[in-house]
């Protein structure tokens, strides 16, 4: 925010101080336009670019087509995509002062993920659970998803500063959730670990890490 947009209050507290302020504000340069839909598109573009870089580097999973026919493996990219839509919509709503959101769509995604976990738990014996959760590519996962999400998140938060969210931390957190979900959906196209125990835990964990980063950054960056 530059100074020409940002006159300071005067501290004489008189009527003429107020009139002077009104005049200064009236002739000040109007702020840049605020277009939330454009912000969403730019964030999606950033996420797509990051996803494309990742897929070029890691390559899509060999059985990508077949994996999308199985409902459980389809959920791996589909649930993050649905979460992305909900979180991004909520972010845009909250980017205006009067914006309100309803938490149930996000809760619905969480419930679906929980259902997947319980469903796969039912088919496993106790000693099989921990290896299924840990998988074999854990570290790469967390680093990749968080890394892929950082670019769209940073760009999105920077543009959201033009908005006026009255709940900056929540707005930043939802932007982070959207960026994390987009990264997870992209990552799912190359990942071959199909146990819901694994992907719900770590995709979910990575998305929450990005959401927490977004909330922290939003608390600092989105206040006005």
């Amino acid at each position, binding site marked *: 925010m530059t100074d020409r947009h940002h006159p300071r209050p005067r501290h004489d507290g008189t009527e003429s101080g107020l009139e002077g302020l009104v005049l200064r*504000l009236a002739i000040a340069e109007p702020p840049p336009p605020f277009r939330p839909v454009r912000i969403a598109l730019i964030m999606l573009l950033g996420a797509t670019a990051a996803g494309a870089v990742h897929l070029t580097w890691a390559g899509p999973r060999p059985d990508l087509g077949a994996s999308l026919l199985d409902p459980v493996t389809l959920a791996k990219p589909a649930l993050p995509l649905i979460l992305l839509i909900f979180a991004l919509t909520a972010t845009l709503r909250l980017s205006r002062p009067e914006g309100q959101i309803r938490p149930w769509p996000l809760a619905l995604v969480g419930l679906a993920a929980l259902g997947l976990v319980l469903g796969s738990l039912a088919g496993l014996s106790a000693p099989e659970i921990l290896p299924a959760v840990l998988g074999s590519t854990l570290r790469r996962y967390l680093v990749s998803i968080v890394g892929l999400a950082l670019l769209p998140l940073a760009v999105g938060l920077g543009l959201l500063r033009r908005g006026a969210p009255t709940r900056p931390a929540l707005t930043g957190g939802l932007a982070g959730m959207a960026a994390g979900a987009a990264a997870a959906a992209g990552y799912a196209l190359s990942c071959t670990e199909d146990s819901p125990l694994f992907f719900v835990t770590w995709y979910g964990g990575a998305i929450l890490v990005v959401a927490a980063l977004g909330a922290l950054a939003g608390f600092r960056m989105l206040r006005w």
Partner: protein
Amino acid sequence: MTDAASEGREGRLQAEDPWESLLRSANAGDARAFARFLVAVTPTIQGIVRARAHLLTREDRDDLVQEILIAIHLKRRSWQPDRPLRPWLHAVIRYKIIDALRRRSRQAQSRHLPIEDLDESLFCEDPADPSVPLDLDRILARIDERSAFIIRASALDGQQAADIGEQLALAEGTVRVLLHRALRKLSDLVQRTLP
């Protein structure tokens, strides 16, 4: 609220809000319209600030009004011209008031002010006619701050004595006694000023 007054308000709601057309022109680059808009909303802002941020000193309240005007300027493009203006405006005012109260409570570490408790009372979806608090303010300015606060909270906002007591850290009974005294003070005052 009398029938005539509520009818008047409904009539205003149906007509195009003049503030909306002013801000629409302002956002299209009309500086004169923006000046007129700011002048038009200032008394409303002052009324809300006086009613909602009565814990601040007079100087802090004046500063807060100026900060709100600046925020309106900085964030005016976040209003959608096809949406009603009032919810946007009130959300901006409420945000800046809470911000100011928080900042002040941080500055005065010794006296903690839990803004979250006040959150609900800081904002009403459908604010009363702004001229009412203005007139009332003129009278209430002549009695002590605590009495004025209690009268405002009970008569204007319709809060229960227990709730008011919670905000002032006083017992419910004490609030009732104080309200009674404050009302007597007020009626004495009004009678003395009558010819």
